[in-house]
């Protein structure tokens, strides 16, 4: 049994709009084992990005807890928090918006190295940046250029290099390929898999593109209206989806296969509110579904 690197215990995030409380994330529980990838899927507004931000320590937590290596991230000592901030990094969806346009690539990538004093000299700092560029497949002459000089795929590589600069253990990947062309998506997914294998990284892969999630994830968590409606091993979820929402979501994904698409029934999910009293039940070993 591998040790869970992360454990969500009744994690909740509530936002207030005037007096109205919106439960963006409502008491969710799941674990992420070291060295694995968990795919977090759901539509806009399902709470998946809010969950990712809470786990990465850059979003609010209203209730419950997240354990990182067995320790609560809400009750860290100052030193422990600093270590956590280094070990958990986030890669964002839009490489056009998440990189500072006025900074040179070398300074973007070295930001974490500087913040955590990971280089002892200017030469060491530069050597680290060059090594990271090689790792993500960018040329060395990229260092003195600005983000706008790069394509979308290259910018996402810069974003990944920036995250890797502080030698993290865990990456929250928030829709890292949604804004990219198909063949570039494959390049980034290949790169992420290779880095994961080489550095034994753990991923939370947040996405709405379910075919890539299927390909990259060991486990899938499906969110709807801030709650988990289904969770389990990737193959179990894809081959035997149990919750009507999961079934609709999967049937909605167009496959690159015209014969299949012509025969496929389009399912409709009755978009009513979930029963607040319903809880997750283990329908099959390690396959959880919200009771209906």
């Amino acid at each position, binding site marked *: 049994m591998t040790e869970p690197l992360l454990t969500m215990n009744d994690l909740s995030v509530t936002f207030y709009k005037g007096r109205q409380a919106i439960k963006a994330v409502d008491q969710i529980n799941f674990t992420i084992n070291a060295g694995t990838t968990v795919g977090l899927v759901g*539509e*806009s507004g399902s709470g998946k990005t809010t969950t990712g931000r809470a786990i990465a320590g850059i979003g609010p937590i209203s209730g419950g807890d997240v354990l990182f290596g067995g320790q609560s991230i809400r009750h860290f000592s100052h030193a422990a928090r600093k270590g956590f901030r280094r070990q958990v990094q986030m890669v964002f969806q839009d490489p056009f918006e998440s990189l500072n346009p006025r900074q040179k690539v070398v300074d973007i990538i070295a930001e974490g190295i500087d913040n955590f004093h990971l280089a002892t000299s200017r030469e060491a700092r530069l050597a680290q940046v060059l090594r990271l560029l090689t790792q993500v497949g960018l040329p060395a002459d990229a260092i003195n250029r600005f983000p706008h000089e790069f*394509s*979308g795929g290259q910018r996402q590589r810069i974003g990944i290099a920036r995250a890797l600069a502080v030698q993290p253990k865990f990456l929250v990947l928030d829709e890292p390929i949604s804004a990219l*062309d*198909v*063949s*570039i*998506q*494959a*390049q980034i*997914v*290949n790169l992420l*898999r*290779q880095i994961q294998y080489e550095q034994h990284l753990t991923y939370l892969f947040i996405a*709405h*593109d*379910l*075919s*890539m999630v*299927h*390909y990259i994830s060991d486990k899938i968590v499906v969110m709807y209206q801030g709650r988990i409606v289904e969770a389990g091993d990737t193959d179990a979820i*894809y081959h035997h989806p149990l919750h009507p929402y999961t079934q*609709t*979501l999967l*049937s*909605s*994904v*167009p*496959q*690159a*296969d*015209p*014969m*299949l*698409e012509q025969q496929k029934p*389009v399912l409709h*999910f009755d978009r009513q509110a979930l029963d607040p009293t319903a809880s997750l039940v283990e329908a099959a070993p390690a396959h959880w579904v919200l009771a209906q």
Partner: protein
Amino acid sequence: MTDIVTVKNLKVIFNEGNEQVYAVNGVDLNLRQGETLALVGESGSGKSVATHALLGLLGKDAVVTADEMLYGETDLLQTSRRQYTHLRGQELGLIFQDPLSGLNPTMRIGRQIGEGLKVHRHVHGQALKQAVFAAIEDVGLADPALIARKYPHELSGGQRQRAMIAMALVMQPKVLIADEPTTALDVTLQAQILALIKAQKAKHDLSVIFITHDLGVVANIADRVAIMYAGKIVEVGTANEIFYHPQHPYTWGLLDAVPSSDDQRDQLFTLPGTPPDLHQPIKGDAFAPRNPYAMPIDFKKEPPLFQVSPTHFVRSWLLDPRTPHYQPPVTIQKRWARFAQLHAEQTNDPVVESQQAGGVPV
């Protein structure tokens, strides 16, 4: 089937100061009455520019030339800006990826949908109201009276996309051009919008050009598929021909970059290199530097169009009968086997080996 749109040798060059960008480099395209043609390509392949040229939407910095550009009997090369405005308002509908950029934020939805009818068709009063409500209902939005009173920002993403489709369809266009209309949507919404476009197409006998880079969406919606690379169409065929009998190495690359539902590969296929710099005219086959199957001739001479079947055309030297025998990637061989099987179920004729069939360039 008759062609409703015919484009021959379309070229678009953008003037950027002292530089030129060769965005579209000789596109031949025909849209048949009642079909959906998917135009597939990556950013910079020229798919949007080509369709914008067709619609007369390019600015003064674009030089558009073509041997022929027809909409029905109308010669689009001789069409004035004023006539184009009229055409776009009445016959050629357009929907965009981002409904917010296609909708006026300060105007109520109902007024926007009715605008074209009022201006071009002089429909007013109660008749206008009825037409607008019918259009809103037609795209699956309940309570048209309520929706008509709202502003774009008061609608959800899916409702806005439906409202924009209603705005395009209320004029009963003959041709609908859909420029990545579902790229920004969640998959469940995407499935609904695709179903809606298909239903509307059947109901109104629309001809549709659907621009996308998502091969799943293509498989769902297209009758025929044209693959674009560096401003040219490199392969065109029926959906079955493109997905199960693809011939161009670029098409192979695109298909292999998408994981299948039971993908066991450690790494997905990716094309080496980057798309060509379109600031210079390209010598030889633009795809040659990224083509694992490239031969010396690919770098020297542009391939002609080879015919594989009456509906399937490919621009690649691989189809030349003088080309030494080659094997496509295993994943593509599997697709070919499927095609042979499909073909056998439908006719008794064997599939002609493509290289022989493609012996004659057209």
